[in-house]
């Protein structure tokens, strides 16, 4: 794991603010695409003891590790977290619940079997909940854990979400420091499928060291590679999170978040190739220095188009006025030239 040591060092320098163990890290409602239709969603980020992988280094772009609780929350704490989260859904009629822990929901050391059972049973009992999606690393997707969930949820739809990031083992290892292989993902997806559980794959556009053009190609290739295994693909746009290796590179002027034109390019081409697969992207932080951005002038237009497409899956939604922004020429040059910068990637530079 080439980067693990430096990532650990950066993690150790980061100050973490203490927080209440009985309040979820975050809860919000939104929309998603469910079988071709728009559906309300409730996203809950549970505060747990955190990601085991993140706690010993972890991924180069992940700042969620700082969301974990410093003392492992108790059973009662987590019950309380769920309760507070569900209050946010009080006005919804039918919805999907998306569970994150900044780690793996299926990791027993993070979410004890008791807690897991309590949460899933509770959700199953709430008849408004059509579907539950829970994020996990693939090593926790075993016959054992999947069957357990399936049993709790009964006929509520269940989907596991895995941060595969890319189908390239080299990028996942040398750039992201993810700690598992593509084959691990495939195995997990197969176990899920066998148990009538669907799989959602998260991909990551432009982890560190990857040029803009290679990042685009990597996403297109990854989608081609995972379509057989994932019904649902969501592309995260790498952004600069506090206390991460990516931030360290960015502060040195050696990392630039992806261009929004790049995700548009990926979505267009991949959707055309794989019309049956749901491919979405939520451009978090779009138009900010730390988030994916073009020239800041056209960013909101493009981010909105991406969001719209993510709901409609209609590639016409990706044609937008913003494409005529002056910076489109610049992006084309960046894609071409960044490939031959040999580690001196093209970043935004101040006038000096």
């Amino acid at each position, binding site marked *: 794991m080439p980067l693990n040591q430096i990532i650990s060092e950066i993690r150790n320098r980061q100050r973490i603010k203490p927080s209440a163990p009985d309040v979820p890290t975050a809860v919000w409602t939104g929309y998603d695409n469910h079988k071709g239709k728009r559906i309300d969603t409730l996203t809950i980020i549970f505060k747990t003891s955190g990601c085991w992988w993140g706690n010993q280094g972890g991924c180069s772009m992940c700042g969620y590790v700082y969301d974990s609780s410093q003392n492992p929350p108790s059973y009662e704490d987590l019950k309380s977290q769920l309760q507070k989260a569900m209050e946010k859904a009080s006005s919804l009629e039918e919805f999907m619940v998306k569970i994150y822990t900044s780690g793996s929901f299926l990791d027993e050391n993070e979410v004890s079997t008791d807690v897991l059972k309590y949460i899933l049973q509770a959700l199953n009992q709430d008849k408004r909940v059509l579907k539950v999606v829970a994020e996990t690393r693939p090593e926790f997707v075993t016959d054992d854990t999947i069957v357990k969930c399936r049993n709790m949820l009964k006929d509520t739809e269940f989907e596991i979400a895995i941060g595969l990031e890319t189908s*390239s083992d080299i990028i996942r290892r040398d750039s992201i420091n993810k700690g598992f292989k593509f084959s691990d993902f495939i195995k997990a997806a197969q176990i899920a499928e066998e148990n009538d559980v669907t799989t959602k794959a998260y991909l990551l556009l432009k982890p560190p060291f990857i040029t803009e*053009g290679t990042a685009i190609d990597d996403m297109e290739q990854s989608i081609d590679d995972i379509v057989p295994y994932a019904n649902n693909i969501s592309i995260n746009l790498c952004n600069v999170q506090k206390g991460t290796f990516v931030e360290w590179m960015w502060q040195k002027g050696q990392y630039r978040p992806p261009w929004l034109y790049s995700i548009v390019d990926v979505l267009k081409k991949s959707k055309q190739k794989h019309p049956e697969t749901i491919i979405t992207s939520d451009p978090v932080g779009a138009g900010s220095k730390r988030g994916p951005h073009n020239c800041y002038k056209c960013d909101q237009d493009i981010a909105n188009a991406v969001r719209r497409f993510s709901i409609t899956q209609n590639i016409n939604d990706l044609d937008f006025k913003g494409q005529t922004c002056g910076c489109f020429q610049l992006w084309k040059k*960046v894609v071409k030239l960044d490939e031959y*910068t040999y580690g001196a990637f093209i970043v935004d530079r101040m006038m000096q």
Partner: protein
Amino acid sequence: MTKHFEVEQRDGKARLGKLILSRNLKTPCIINIEDIGDTEKLPIIDAGSVWKQGKHIFENQYLNQLRQKVSENNLIILPHQNYPYNVPDKAVSNATGNYDIETSGATGSVFHPGKKVKNSDLYIMEGGGGLENNARQFFNALKGLKEEIPHDTAVYVPNIALPENLAMLIYLGADVFDYTRATISAYNDIYLTSSGKFYLYNITELPCRCDACTSVTVDDLKLMDAENRGIILEEHNKNMLDSELSLVREKIRKGYLREYVEGQCRTQPWLTALLRIADFDQCYLEEQFPTTRTVQLTANTSESLNRPEITRFAERVQNRYTPPKKDILLLLPCSARKPYSTSNSHQKFIDTLGQYRKYVHELVLTSPLGIVPRELELTYPAAHYDIAVTGHWDADEVEWVTDCLVNYLSKNKYSCVVAHVEGAYQKVCDLAARKLGIDIVYTCESDVTSKESLEVLKDTIKNLAYERTQPKPMSKHNLMRAIADYQFGKGAGNILVPDDAVIKAPYPKHQVYLNKEQIATLVPHHGTLSLTARGAELLIPHDNYVVKIGSFVPKGSILAPGIQEADVSIRPGDEVLISGENAIGVGRALMSGREMEKSTRGIAITLRHVKKT
């Protein structure tokens, strides 16, 4: 080693050369990296990034296929997995793309410190452009690279070249650049000039007369659509890079790049920092700085004090020079006219001293050189420097000259030190006297050439002379020995100019004869000795500045591959002694000793005399 790169001319670390490919690229050069892969346009192709291409490029087979597609004269950049410079070595060395792969023909390698250096013709400084504005890291990275790779290979620093920094980068030893920054700047509406960047929408006129700029007014340009605006700006930006490149090449040809860089680096603080950091490094630049130049040394900035020629001169005066045996030291101010003794003021000093001159040893105080013994006043750069004349020395100059004087006086003892100086010179003497706890006799208050001052000087020396036995007159032998020691190291003077040597021809064109055979000539223009083959024969056992060659008799010049060993103290411009099985000789070095040993191409020495043995 390399068959595809040759250095043709040097000016310090900077060099003119060529990449010998299907189409030769004269270096320093700027490549249009967009053309990579189209060998019609650019004889370079990239075997690709591990990040992009994955594992298959690990296989030698892939590279061999690539080589079959393009000729041996197209340079293949070997597969690479690029990281920025700051990523820890350990991370990089554990990365997937750590494999051993080679191909025939011209190759380029991406260099990461700590990773094994492959045999290549071109080395790419990984993450080069990412170190802009970080002078310390950039310098360390470049120095690290240059120390690992053979001298006669080219260095490519990607994604960094701007008109403002090109001179400095070439000065520090880089050879190949790309237009990437010029293009990206253009599409960011940034208008480049050699004196910095302008945001197009902040300027009201175009400060350039290139084709692109004369094709359009600034107002029209601002109103154009992004694509067309980008095209024009890109053309301009590339023109500026080209133009700066030509200028730098001309400065190298003139041997004047250092002077240019001392001004040009003021466009950005990090470039100024680079100049200073490179000077603080004792070896990096000095090893390849010439010992003589055909042009004046212009000392026009505070950094001039630290340029390699200056520190080298001071170091040699301290360590190589042996003063004549006299016990009165006379300190004199420098003069605008060089050599000093031809100036009006020094003529007056010499006239005034008259017959008493032989009692004193003369030492000239000067900024930026520090101290110049009279015997070395002809020797580069003592007679070859030009400064901004304001009549004022700043604190650094005072400190530097004082240090030189203190060092000298700590080593060389006199029973009496007389200073015929005023102003800053007197301050220097005061400081030195205080530091050393010695007394200095001053012979003037203000104007050193006034009648009164000269009178006091004369009386002072006269009185001192009365107490002393008459020394030998200032001997031509001493002069020639001092220069020999300066040039070839302590002891050379006694070998080349023994007491029974005869010095012919008037100053400054002295010639040394021994047993009626000519040994050496003083070349007035550089103030150095030019040896005959006999002179070389005598000096070779002294074992400095010796170049060992194989069993051939060289003619005209010696190529680097013909050299077996070369003294590491050899610098470009040095008189070197050639010692071979079948010949001895003498010539002028065109490269440093280390470079001679390590290079596989290029002329190392132009010969002056050869004698079969």
